[in-house]
């Protein structure tokens, strides 16, 4: 049952991602990104990573998409199709295909037979919080400083002078 849901959601996310990179309409691309990210959140829920799933919805769908839409709209994204892509897509396509064709079978064959256990105990958030604030305090503080630097940098770069 979970395998079936996973296949449906994975197919939707994959299709939305492909439509995202091949779309000529810019805001449609952003909306396909919403579909992809929500699909990812559902898969996180399937894999019992509940807190990460809702963080994904809150931050990615709630804030990152809004930021991207702001970026598109403030740089005058037109309604309708924009011009064609770069001429490099005839090289980029084969590169991506070769990358997929080499990596996927290797991963498939190497990790065959291992399963993800889907019956975690409850209290996932509490355990996650405990682990972040006891074992991973230093990366946490460093990420806080990084976010502060990014905030100051973005405000400074984008202000009118």
């Amino acid at each position, binding site marked *: 049952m979970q395998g079936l849901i996973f296949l449906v959601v994975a197919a939707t996310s994959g299709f939305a991602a492909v439509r995202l990179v091949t779309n000529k309409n810019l*805001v449609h691309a952003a*909306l396909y990104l919403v579909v992809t990210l929500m699909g990812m959140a559902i898969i996180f829920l399937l894999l019992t990573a509940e807190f990460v799933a*809702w963080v994904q919805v*809150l931050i990615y769908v*709630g804030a990152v998409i809004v930021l991207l*839409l702001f970026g598109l709209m403030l740089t005058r994204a037109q*309604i309708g199709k924009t011009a064609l892509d770069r001429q490099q897509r005839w090289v980029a396509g084969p590169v991506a295909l070769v990358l997929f064709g080499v990596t996927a079978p290797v991963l498939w064959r190497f990790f065959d037979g291992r399963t993800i256990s889907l019956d975690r105990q409850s209290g996932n*958030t509490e355990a996650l919080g405990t682990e972040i604030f006891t074992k991973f305090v230093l990366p946490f503080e460093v990420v806080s400083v990084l976010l502060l630097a990014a905030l100051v940098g973005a405000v400074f770069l984008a202000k009118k002078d």
Partner: protein
Amino acid sequence: MIAEILGNGYVQLGMKLGVLMILLPATLALGWVELKIGAHMQARMGPMYPGGFHGWAQTLADGIKFVLKENIIPKNADKSVFSMVPYVTMLGAALIYVVIPAGENLVIENLEVGVFYVLAASSIGVIGVLMAGWASANKYSMMGALRAAAQLIAYELPLVLAAAAVAMMAGSLSLVDIVEGQKQIVLAGFYIPFLPFQIIGFVIFLIAATAEMTRPPFDMPVAEAELITGAFTEYTGIRFAFSLFAAEYITMIGLSAFGATMFLGGYAPLHTALEFIPGIVWLLAKTGTILFLLIWIRWTFPRLREDQLQKFAWKVLIPLSLVNIFITGALKLTPWI
């Protein structure tokens, strides 16, 4: 015996569908209540004619009027995005009802991360506003949408931080645990909710919730046809009613129920002697209190200008909510909280 009935799969399914069914009539009722309360606060009578007794069918008549109006899509608009907007905004609002508990087992799904889920669900509606503004092919809609999105993003942070302080006090993110935590403190038979300990948090929550729904005094983006209705200028007919009124009222009831659960005690009764009254009555009474507060604020204060409300969010509310978290942390160190 009641536990057996509630544990039955069909009863649970019926409850879940029941909550969905109740949303639309509740929206209509809330619209009428708002018109009446606003009217009496302004020493006038409000709707009196539709339906006979004090115009109870006013919002129903409005709904029928919207359905009968012409459905216009501008020629240059992006049709698929334009039509999807009302559903996106209503989806973001309706998802909140999944975790609100009406009793210890009367909740659609008691998520472990209930508080976080509500905040995530209410942040989905921002995309709807941006989609509406862009898809209308109208530069005033676009500007209104950008300002609305900036306001919604700015006031999400105080909402999250006020909710985080409550989660700290209860020790859990699950809404049922928060209500059970509020039932722990009993003083002369009265259940003391988190309100006296979190009064700053409650005020911040009220302000942030008002701004999240772009209600007055934070309705600069919408401003009801003074600013040509902002992002939803080109919307007519039932799409207009859905995206503007229905989404706002559904979010209002959802966030009020959320605030009532977090700060006022949810389904917990006021006094131990009154426990025979079922929890859902208490929840509705407390939600009604917060709804009354929201409607009262709407008809009282003038509108904030866009830069005033942004300054208020970033320079006043966020430091205040961080101070609130600090105070809550200090309170948790005392042995009797």
